[in-house]
């Protein structure tokens, strides 16, 4: 019996949460937006999501096999990457664009750095950024909901001063507007975000300060507040990309800095930059600063209070 007793370092009881249970929560949180996008853009949207997931998981499997690493596709992180990548592509994208994007996300965004936990950049946004510079036409060809007619995105209209009609606030909130596959419905995304907040998988700090910064600055720049909050990828980016646990700062104060930085860069790109939307690049740039932010936002350790407050 002696040699059947396990010897290990404390603690001897552990919580039930695993990497896959976290990822499952994210997948559940993305479902409302997925349903809305299928409603708006038809079954083709679902097909794109499925292709993206299949290629993400497949790439993860084969790259881990080739690199001689443990196969970790059952942690569901590649599924999350797949869904999110499809969400940030135009709903009328050709299937091969999605497939290439998924492979790029996993390979260049994640596996090349050593897999989940080691990637400095959000893999989804790496995939999107590479696609955007490689196939700029396909990546900016927007289609309208329901009928699929080629049109300009709301941010394009503002940026280029086109005289197309802008969507109403109601349409922006519910999602009936031109935009990326999963970013259009503010309501659906907020429902998903609320679920993640409730399950404590994300903290409010980054999205709150991201959105606040964008809101305040868009007023200062003379833009329309609600339009700027709901017309691009801000809600999706703030709640699902900037909160990516691997590529965002560790502490609450760090998350606040990160959110403000993302907001500043988004507005800078939207109002002064060459492209109509800035959320993707803003988050990628802020990802680079995460080690620095972490270094300067360590939590206050116990027992370092000033003498005055010690004797209360």
């Amino acid at each position: 019996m002696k040699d059947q007793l396990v010897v290990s370092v404390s603690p001897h009881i552990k919580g039930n949460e695993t990497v896959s249970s976290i990822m499952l929560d994210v997948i559940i949180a993305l479902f409302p937006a997925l349903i809305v996008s299928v409603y708006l853009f038809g079954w083709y949207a679902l097909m794109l999501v499925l292709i993206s997931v299949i290629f993400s998981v497949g790439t993860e499997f084969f790259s881990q096999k080739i690199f001689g690493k443990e196969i970790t596709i059952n942690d569901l992180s590649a599924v999350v990457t797949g869904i999110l990548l499809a969400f940030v592509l135009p709903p009328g994208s050709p299937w091969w664009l999605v497939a290439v994007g998924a492979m790029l996300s996993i390979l260049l965004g994640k596996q090349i750095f050593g897999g989940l936990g080691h990637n400095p950049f959000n893999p989804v946004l790496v995939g999107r950024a590479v696609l955007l510079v490689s196939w700029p036409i396909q990546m900016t060809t927007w289609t309208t909901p329901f009928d699929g007619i080629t049109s300009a995105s709301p941010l394009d209209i503002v940026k280029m001063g086109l005289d197309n009609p802008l969507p109403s606030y109601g349409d922006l909130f519910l999602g009936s507007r031109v935009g990326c596959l999963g970013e259009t419905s503010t309501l659906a995304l907020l429902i998903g975000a609320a679920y993640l907040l409730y399950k404590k998988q994300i903290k409010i700090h980054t999205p709150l300060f991201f959105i606040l910064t964008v809101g305040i600055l868009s007023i200062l720049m003379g833009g329309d507040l609600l339009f700027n909050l709901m017309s691009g990828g801000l809600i999706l980016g703030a709640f699902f990309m900037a909160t990516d646990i691997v590529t965002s700062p560790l502490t609450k104060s760090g998350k606040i800095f990160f959110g403000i930085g993302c907001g500043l860069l988004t507005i800078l790109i939207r109002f002064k930059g060459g492209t109509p939307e800035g959320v993707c690049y803003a988050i990628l740039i802020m990802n680079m600063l995460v080690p620095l932010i972490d270094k300067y936002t360590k939590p206050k350790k116990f027992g370092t209070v000033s003498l005055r407050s010690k004797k209360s």
Partner: protein
Amino acid sequence: MKKFTFKAGVHLPSYKKLTVGEEIKETSIPQQVVILLSQHIGSPAQSIVSKGEKVKVGQKIGEAQGNISVSVHSSISGEVIDICPQLHPVSGKKVLSVIIKSDGQDEWIEKGKEHKDYFRLSSKEICNIIKEAGIVGLGGAAFPTHVKLSPPKDVDIVILNGVECEPYLSGDEQLMIKYPVEIIEGLKIIMQTVKASWGIVGIEDNKPRAIELMKKEIAKQPNISLKILKEKYPQGGEKQLIKALLNREVPSGGLPMDVGVLVDNVGTSFAIREAVIRGLPLVSRVVTVSGWGVFYPKNLRVRIGSSISFLIEECGGFSFVPGKVIMGGPMMGITQYNLEVPVVKGTSGILVFGQKEVKKENIRDCIRCSKCIDVCPMGLVPCMIALYAENQDWEKAKGYNLLDCIECGACVYVCPAKRPIVQYVKWAKEKLKC
């Protein structure tokens, strides 16, 4: 009534229901006890008996060496059959021990002097009685109590720790239910010794019976109050307890006395009372024997030096093939591979887990979810400490305040990647020592 607590920490399943109604029962007299001469922090006691000598219960068999050391006593009557190195359940090293074979008589040595009039004694006299009685902190640290009771700084408040925040354990709770009068008397002796003006008993809200009985007793005392705490781990850590009750923060690297506080466990208080008022040395203690792996989980008053296997037999044996045996609580306890090791003064529990409960965990790389930071009661960044320790960069780990870690294990409990952070911390601390 206002409930107190501290920031961060984690809510654990309590598993206390296994033993919650189990009153403290005496074990039968063990056939043999192994009494380690080093059961406390500080220099080991020196054996004053020889092989073949007859000893009685309560007879001193080890003399304290120097100030930071305490005496050791025989817990049964019988014959010394050997004095040799034996495995220490906590340190894992072999330490000199006295092995006594029982004669079945359980004959006590003549008791020490009773001091019902303890208020006439000076602090020094009380400390001497405590040292001679072999009393150490019974919460688990096993620091000699007489040293703690002669602090070089002024102490104005004594906190009695009845928190018992580790899951499974319920020995302190039962002690408070059975001996409220004695525990409060012990507290009064402690307060008198360190000249503290105020006493506080802190109990978590998951022990309603203990709270009720202690409250009655405390109501009779003018300068002692009861404070109820919200259930949370690791609230029984003295730094967390002081913060929760008094909002005083013990400075990093400091001791409770730096903020004018002394914390003692309720078990220690009881032992002090028995030593001072009744003249009894520390020869037994309350141990919770629990877990799904034992047939009848119980709270036992155990003779020090009894083996783990003896205690498990007293609880009806194993209920199925054991996978893990732990001395202490499930969060900070130490796994045992040899069930013949003895109970020491700091042993608060023996837990037996079945093989099914001992899963091999799939350890992943850190995914930076920062949950460990949220729960760390010391305000550290456990994931970074573990990362640097993993890469054997000890200095960087130290830079992340490694030495402030109390190894409570809250970070490991919440870690979704199942990283053995406490193991890394212990490793790094060991490496930095040499």
